Structure formats: C-alpha cells, structure tokens
C-alpha cells in the first residue's frame, strides 16, 4: 500500500478523512478513474477524501509535501544532481511522439525510476530512457513527458503535478478573518427552537390522532409555531487598541443586526473594560448611556451575553477600584467586579477577542479575563465555537471567578 502514509499525512494535518473514504479512493483507482495521470489522481483523491472547500488548502499542502517528499526519498548522487542542475533545452515533440510515450502509474513510475537510477552510470541528455535533462524519459527535469517525475530544478514545461502548488484555495480556509457571509453562517447556529407562544399552525399528526379518536369526525388541532428563543446582548469594546479591528467588529455587528432569527438583540459599547456605565453608541457619551446595574436589571439571566474586546489594558484598569481612566469615576467598583457581576448574572456568556490567540498570554489582564469568560478568537472558527458555547451543551467545569486582590461588591 504505497500511498497509505499519504492518508496518514492527511489525517495528521487535521483532515477528518476516514478509512471508508480511503477505500472509495482505492476503488476509483482500481477502476482507472485517475487515467494514470497525477492530475487525475489529485482530482479523484480530493473528491473522495476532502469534504469541504475549507480543507482544500490543507489537502494541497499535504499533497505538495508528500509528492515533493518522493524526490527527497530517493538517493540522488551529487553527479546526478549536477547534470540536472545544468539542463539542456528539450526538443519539441510531435503529438504522435507525445502519445507514444508510455503513461505510467505513479507506483510503476517510481519503481522504474529507481531501477533506472540503479542502472545508470553516466550523464545523459536528450534521450528517452535515462535520467537526464531535455529528454523524453519520464524522469529528470525540463523534459516533455506528460506524467513524469521532476528531479530537482525549477519547472519548465508545466505539467499537472504542479496544480496543488498554486494554493488557489487558501481563500476558503476558515481560520482567517471574517466576511459578512461567513459571520452570518456562524450566527445561524444561534438558534434554540422552542414552541412557546405566538402564531399557531395546524398540527397534522395531532389532527389525525384526534380525528381518529372521534371516529372520523374531523377535529383540527393547532399548536404554536417553533421559533427561535435566543436573546443576545452584545457588549463591545471601542477605541484605542480596538481601532485596528474596526472592520471585523463592524461586520459582526452588521450581521447580528440583520440576523432575523434572533428573538431579541441589543448592543452596548464600553471602552477597555465595563464599569458602572455602558453606552448605546460608539461615541461613549454620558447622554447616551445606561447604568450597568440597570442593564443587569433589564436583561434577565436568559439573555446570552457576548462581549467583544481585546481584554488588553493596564492591570490597574481592571483590578483597581478607581481603574476607570477615561471618565469621571462615580463608584468605587473595579472593572473586574463588574465583569464578575456580568458573568454571574447571565446564564451563558462568551468573550470574543480579535487579537490572535498566541498574543493572549502576553497581556496579564487578558489572561485574567479569559479565566472568567470562555474566550474565543474573532474569526470564523472562533465565532462558530463561541456560538456553540452560547447555545450548545454546557461546558462541564466552572471557571475560577475572582482574581486575587480584587474588591468584592
């Protein structure tokens, strides 16, 4: 099983390809669907093993790595490499000649290559059997063989083997930043369907049951429609270190406003950390604000809390009682106490951080806050996970709540 390690390479790169899919691929190869070309093999393998365009790029990388690896795996003598490093230009082939060249399986090809390599003892250019340059043999480089193996050097005649090197699918990766549609897709999961109140619909099964019980006297049964019961409260950090993230954050906000499925949605703003006031606009004016205590009274614990912010600030801004640097302080309550109150008040809450996760540990306040709220990256994957955290199964462990030394209310 020559390619089995290719399968394992895919799996260790994070693709979820299974044995069942691997067997599908083998069946296809047995039936000759790859037409004995590398391009064909690439298409067939991708169709069988990869089930999402977001994984195409990973597949391409592994494919490139694996088949480049073949070059390295064969022992090449320095002389051979030297002949190949100074190639002679290839002669043009007529179509008949091209067709006449034998099309080989990659396994066969590798075997023959190694056999040929073992026999060959001198530099060779322009022939049709030996490893060399400018020839019609399937091995070497700068040649014209349609399914050949390239041995070192840059590509001359572009053969199918190089398709995967373009990485044309890198745009489809899901660990990159958000666009509006991606955000919407992620938010689709923000659903908890319940039958509570609202308009009614005909319950067919109920009607049939009831009618049968009434011996054929038709009896119509109605029940409330299923509808989304998710109410979302969004708190957003604005200004300062959040300015570079204006684009992704505003996309998230637009998508949330357009998300018709939510039962209710409210957004408030803050700067750096939540203190006694939250603001109804990004200008953070006192006239457009609400007391955080009122916020907690207004929105019951069934609201889901989503906080967007980089959680990076001076430790005193989070932990000291007079930490609020930008505004006149009204009460002596630290930011961390407010965050703690929010976290305890709401049944489910998440923190979305636009900074890259590797940077989180660099800020002590970020470390502290990520201990209070489940923190996710503001990317497609992170948002999806965050949304799952809001509506999915409850995480088993409860995180430590208060940081040492912070004042309690």
């Amino acid at each position: 099983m020559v390619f089995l390690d290719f399968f394992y390479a895919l799996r260790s790169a994070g693709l979820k390809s299974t044995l069942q899919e691997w067997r599908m691929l083998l069946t296809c190869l047995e039936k000759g669907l790859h037409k004995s070309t590398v391009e064909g093999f690439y298409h067939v393998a991708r169709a069988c093993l990869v089930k999402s365009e977001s994984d195409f790029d990973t597949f391409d990388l592994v494919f490139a790595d694996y088949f480049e690896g073949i070059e390295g795996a064969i022992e090449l003598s320095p002389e051979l490499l030297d002949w190949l490093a100074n190639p002679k230009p290839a002669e043009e082939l007529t179509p008949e000649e091209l067709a006449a060249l034998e099309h080989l399986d990659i396994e066969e090809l590798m075997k023959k290559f190694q056999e040929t390599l073992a026999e060959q003892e001198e530099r060779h250019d322009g022939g049709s059997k030996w490893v060399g340059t400018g020839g019609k043999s399937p091995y070497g480089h700068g040649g014209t063989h349609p399914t050949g193996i390239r041995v070192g050097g840059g590509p001359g005649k572009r053969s199918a083997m190089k398709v995967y090197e373009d990485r044309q699918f890198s745009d489809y990766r899901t660990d990159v930043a958000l666009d509006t549609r991606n955000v919407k897709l992620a938010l689709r999961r923000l659903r908890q369907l319940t039958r509570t109140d609202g308009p009614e619909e005909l319950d067919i099964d109920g009607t049939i049951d009831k009618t049968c019980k009434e011996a054929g006297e038709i009896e119509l049964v109605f029940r409330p429609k299923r509808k989304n019961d998710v109410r979302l409260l969004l708190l957003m950090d604005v200004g300062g270190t959040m300015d570079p993230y204006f684009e992704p954050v505003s996309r998230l906000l637009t998508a949330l406003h357009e998300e018709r499925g939510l039962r209710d949605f409210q957004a408030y703003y803050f700067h750096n950390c939540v203190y006694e006031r939250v603001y109804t606009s990004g200008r953070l004016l006192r006239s457009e604000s609400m007391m955080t205590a009122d916020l907690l009274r207004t929105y019951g614990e069934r609201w889901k809390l989503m906080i967007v912010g980089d959680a990076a600030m001076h430790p005193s801004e989070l932990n000291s009682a007079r930490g609020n640097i930008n505004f006149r302080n009204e009460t002596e309550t630290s930011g961390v106490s407010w965050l703690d109150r929010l976290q305890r008040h709401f049944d489910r809450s998440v923190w979305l951080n636009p900074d890259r996760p590797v940077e989180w540990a660099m800020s002590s306040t970020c470390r502290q806050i990520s201990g209070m709220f489940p923190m996710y990256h503001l990317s497609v994957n992170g948002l999806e996970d965050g949304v799952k955290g809001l509506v999915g199964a409850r995480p088993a462990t409860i995180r430590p709540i208060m940081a040492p030394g912070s004042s309690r209310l």
Partner: protein
Amino acid sequence: MSNAAAAESFGQFEGTSGYIASRSLIDAVNCSLALERPLLVKGEPGTGKTLLAHHVAEGLGMEMDSWHIKSTSKAEDGLYVYDTVQRLNDARFGDGNVGDIRSYIRLGPLGRVFSSEKRQVLLIDEIDKADLEFPNDILRELDEMQFTVMETGDEVKAKQRPMVIITSNNEKELPDAFLRRCVFHFIEFPDVDQMRDIVDVHHPQVEKALLEQVLTKFYWLREQKELRKKPSTSELIDWITALLRAGVNPRQLEAELPFMGALLKNEQDTKVISQYLDRDGKLPTSLDELKGPGRR
C-alpha cells in the same frame, strides 16, 4: 491499457455542449458514477450546481428526477407519503377504494427513482435548506437504496442504483456521517477564460469588444469589497442579454454601467456603486487594470 478498459465498463461523463465543466468536476462526476455514491456539489450561488444535474443526465442519456428541498422538507417526503387525510375524507363520503391502502401511498422522488426500470439521475437540490437532521435521516436510504413502506410492508428497492447529485449553498453544515458517504466537489468561480467559454455557450453572437468590456466591469464589480452580494455567472448572462437587447455598444460600457439592476440585487450595493460613479469614480476599461482573479 487495462485501466482504460475498466473505465469503459460504466458510463463516463465527459461534459456536454451546453455546460462547460472543468476537468476536476468531470473526474468527480465519474468517481461518483463508478462508486455509485452521491455527488455533493457546493459553490457560490449561480455557478451552475443545479444545472450540472440536468447536463449529467443529458450527457449520460438518463432521465432525471428532482427533489427541491425546503425548510419544511422531511426525509419521509422523499420516500413516500401516506395520504391519510384523503383516505379519511374518502371514508367519510364513500369515495375511492378506501380498503386498499396502496392507493393512498404516493412515492416521493427517491421512491420514484428507486422503482424506475432504468438508471436515473436524481437531483436533491439545496439540501442545506432543510432541518439540520435531514441529511442523517436519508443516510440509510441513500446507502442501501431501498426502504419499506411501513403501512403495507412493501419493499421499494432500487432496480438500478441512481446517480444522486446533491447541491448545497453552505447555509448549514452537513453531518460528518453524511459527508463520508459522498463524493465531494466544490465549483470554483470561473476565471476569465472559462467565463468566455461559458458566455459563448449562452451568447455565441456577442462581439469581442463588447465582451471584453462586459467581463472587465463584471470582474471589477466582484473585486469591490463593499458589495454584500457579488454578482454571479447567471447574473452576468442576464446582464449580457439585457445589453444585447438594448443594443448597447462597447463605447457606452467604458464609462458607465447600464442595467446595473441585472447584476446587483441589493439596494445598498446599487447605492454604493452609483455613489462611486457619481463621484466620477473611474471604471477600468481593460482586464489588465484589475488586480484580482479577473486578471491573468
């Protein structure tokens, strides 16, 4: 060439004159045919996912049945429907053959394709529209290509395993168990050269100078990040139809975008572009001025 001989033993799809298919798409279709597994096709709206099924059927000389999925679709609908309400009604008023349950069983698209004598193509369109559990509910039926009508105990078993083509717009994630059983293909957005071929299929008479302008504007629009919905292939085809009907010449297209409504379907998008044009914003006049995939 034993491989080639093996390839001949089942019908091979090679594209049709009315549908420009990439090599990778053709390979995927043939994999699905050989494995007798469903083909799952994803891609931007308007890249011809639904059309593919029609042309696979045409190319292979098979008949096609389709099942258009709605948010209310249930797996059972595809197999059969037992029309109890009709039967009850008939019973009350003494119509029909109430004693025979079979006359109230109506086969759904899957049931029809299974019971067909010839191998057929079945299109399951926009599977992501349905409930999240829907794909899992039809797993077994797609695997075994058979089901039992509970009310009568009748077995419906595929005489010829149909070629199943499933399209998805990515609105919902499909379950892994379902994906494992499918052959997958993602239709990429066509590049300029492929687009020329596609336009040629629909509008062979369009003159070259006009087409260059049309494609330039089209790929330029697709590069605009402010747009909420990028125009797609089908919209391009509509736009060209409108331009040809109105007899617009390439000159006019250089500085303006007539019939913009055919390309932009969103009020905000139209506004963004109109405002740009009102500010005397420049439109590119050749493909070389573009940065993105439009440019070669």
